[in-house]
C-alpha cells in the first residue's frame, strides 16, 4: 500500500500522524518518504541514520558557442523564458528551466548539450525500529520542489517498496499533486477550525481529481467548532481517527517526541488506523472488481474520462 498523508492547511499534524503511523506498523518495515522537501521535519522524530546520498540535478542547456549561430530558436521554443538571446549570445537562467530538453532537440546546429544543475538532494537510512527512511531537500533559493519529490519517489534505495508512507507538503498545488499521484489512499489530517475546513475541502477536491479515496484524521479535536464533522458527514468522508486538543500532546511533539512514544496508548489506535485504511481499500477494490466483471470497460475510455 502507498499511503499519502496530506492536509491542505499547514501545521495540522501531518508529520505527527505519519511518524506515529510508521512506528505503529514498524513490524511491516514501512518505507517513510518525507516529501515535504521545502520544510522536511520527519527526521526530527524518527532519528534516521542517513548513510545513502544522492543529488538531484536538472538537465539544463549549455551552449557550445563555436557552433551557435545565434538564431534564437532555443529562446523561441522555451516556454519558461529560461533562455534569452541578446546580440547573438545565449543566456540561460537555470532557476527557470524545467529540464524539458526542447531547446536541445530544436537547435538546428546541434549546439546545445545538457549539463546537470543541482537543485536538491536525497538522503536515506534506517530510522527508529528499523523503519526505512528517505527524504528530499530542496536547495535554498531553488523554486521547483516537484523534481525533488519525483526523484525521491523513484529512488528506492532499499529494494522492496511497500508499504510506503508519503508525508506530503501543505497546500494543494503541484508538489502535493506529485506526492498524491500513484498513491492508493490519501489520509487528510485537519483541525476543526474554519482554516482547517476550508483547506480540507480543497484537498478533498484534489484527491477527487486524481481519483483517490480519502479518509480524515481530526487533530486538536475540540479546539474549534463542529463544521469539519458536518462537512465530512455530508460528503461521506470517513473520520478514521480523532486526536483531542491537549496541551501535553502539543508540548511532547514540540520537544521532538512522536505521539506513540509520548503516549503509548496511541500505539493500538494507530495500528487500528492502518487496518481500517486497508479494509476500506479492500472493500473498494472488491466493489470495483464486482462491477468490472459484469461490464467490460475499455482502458482508454477510463483515461479520457479523468
Amino acid at each position, binding site marked *: 500500500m502507498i499511503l499519502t498523508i496530506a492536509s491542505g492547511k*499547514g501545521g495540522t499534524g501531518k508529520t505527527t500522524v505519519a511518524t506515529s503511523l510508521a512506528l505503529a506498523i514498524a513490524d511491516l518495515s514501512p518505507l517513510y518518504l518525507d516529501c515535504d522537501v*521545502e*520544510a522536511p521535519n520527519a527526521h526530527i522524530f524518527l532519528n534516521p541514520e542517513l548513510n545513502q546520498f544522492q543529488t538531484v540535478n536538472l538537465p539544463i542547456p549549455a551552449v557550445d558557442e563555436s557552433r551557435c549561430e545565434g538564431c534564437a530558436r532555443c529562446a523561441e521554443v522555451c516556454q519558461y523564458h529560461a533562455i534569452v538571446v541578446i546580440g547573438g549570445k545565449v543566456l540561460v537562467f537555470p532557476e527557470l528551466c524545467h529540464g524539458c530538453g526542447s531547446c536541445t*532537440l530544436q537547435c538546428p546546429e546541434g549546439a546545445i548539450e545538457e549539463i546537470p544543475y543541482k537543485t536538491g538532494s536525497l538522503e536515506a537510512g534506517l530510522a527508529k525500529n528499523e523503519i526505512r527512511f528517505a527524504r528530499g531537500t530542496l536547495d*535554498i533559493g531553488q*523554486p521547483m520542489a516537484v523534481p525533488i519529490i519525483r526523484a525521491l519517489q523513484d529512488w528506492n534505495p532499499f529494494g522492496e517498496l511497500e508499504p510506503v508512507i508519503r508525508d506530503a507538503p501543505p497546500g494543494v*498545488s503541484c508538489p502535493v499533486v506529485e506526492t498524491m499521484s500513484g498513491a492508493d489512499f490519501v489520509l487528510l489530517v485537519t*483541525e476543526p477550525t474554519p482554516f482547517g475546513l476550508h483547506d480540507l475541502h480543497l484537498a478533498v477536491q484534489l484527491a477527487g481529481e486524481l481519483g483517490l479515496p480519502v479518509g480524515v484524521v481530526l487533530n486538536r479535536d475540540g*479546539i474549534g467548532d463542529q463544521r469539519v464533522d458536518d462537512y465530512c458527514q455530508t460528503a461521506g468522508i470517513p473520520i478514521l481517527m480523532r486526536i483531542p486538543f491537549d496541551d501535553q500532546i502539543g508540548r511532547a511533539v*514540540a520537544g521532538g517526541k512522536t505521539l506513540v512514544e509520548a503516549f503509548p496508548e496511541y500505539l493500538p489506535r494507530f495500528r487500528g488506523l492502518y487496518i481500517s485504511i486497508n479494509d476500506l481499500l479492500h472493500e473498494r477494490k472488491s466493489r470495483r472488481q464486482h462491477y468490472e466483471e459484469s461490464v467490460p470497460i475499455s482502458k482508454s475510455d477510463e483515461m479520457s474520462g479523468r
Partner: protein
Amino acid sequence: MKQLVILSGKGGTGKTSIAAALSQLASESERSMSIVLADADVDAANLELILSPSNTRKEDFWGGQIAEIDQRRCAQCGECMQVCRFDAIHAADDGFAINPIACEGCAACFYVCPSEAISLKEQVAGAWFHSDSLYGPLFHAALYPAQENSGKLVTRIKQHAKLQALDNGCDLMIVDGPPGVGCPVISAVSGADLALIVAEPSKAGVHDMRRILETTDHFSVPSVVCINKTDLSAEGSAEIESYCQEAGIAMVGTIPFDVDIPRAMSQGQTIITFQPDGSASRALRDMWQRIVALLRGSDE
C-alpha cells in the same frame, strides 16, 4: 510605500492570524497607516475567512498551457511520447493520450510532431479577487486544485495590490505568505522591504525557521523574527532567541499560546477584536510598534 511579507517555513505557525491582527492594528493605531493586503498563500488562502471581504471582483487566472492531440491528424508515430520528460503522454487503445495533470506545457511534443497534430491550450488555472475588507483592499486568489504556476499567481496578485497601493497612496502592503521555501515563497519575498518570520518554538518550527531565514537572506530581504505559541516549549523559545542573537536578527515579539486565537478564528474575527485585552492581543500590539519603527526607520 513599504512591503511587509509574513513567512514561516513551517505551515500552521500562525502567519494568517498574525497578518489579520497586524492589518487591524495598522488601521486602528494612533498613527494609523493605510494598507493594502495580499494573501500570497494561493493554494490555501485563508485571510479572507477573517477579513470579511465584500464587493469582490473576480478575474480568471490563465496559468500556463497543456498539450492536446488532434486524433484525426495524429499519424501514431509516437515521437511525442518519446520526447516527453514528464511522463505525460501514453499510448492508449485509439492513439496517444495526454495526462493533463502530468503535462508541464513545455511544448517539446508540439515542436517534434511531424503531423502538426498537437496544439497547446491555455488553461484557466485559478482565479484572483479584488475585495474591500475590514482593514483595506484585499487581493486574494484561488489556484484550482492540481494546477501549477502558484508563483506566477502570487506575482499577479502582488502586482495588482501594489498598483492599488500606489494609486491610493498607501503606506504599507502586507503580504501573507505561503509555507515552505519554494516557488510561491520566492514570489512572495520578491520586492519586500521586511520579512516577519513567525517561528514556532518546536523542534520542527526551529528547523524550518532556519530554512526560511536562509531563503530571505539568499534574496537579500531583511528579516525579523517573532515567536508564536511561545509557551509550547521554553527550550524551543530559548533556542530561537539564541539563534537570532547569534545571527544578528532582531526579535520583535513573543506571543503566548492563547486558546482564544482559534476561538476568534471560528467567529471569523481577529484576536484583537475577539479579546482586545487578552495576552496575545497585548503582545501583538507591542510587536506592531516595533515593526512600525523598523519600517519607518528604513526610510532614513
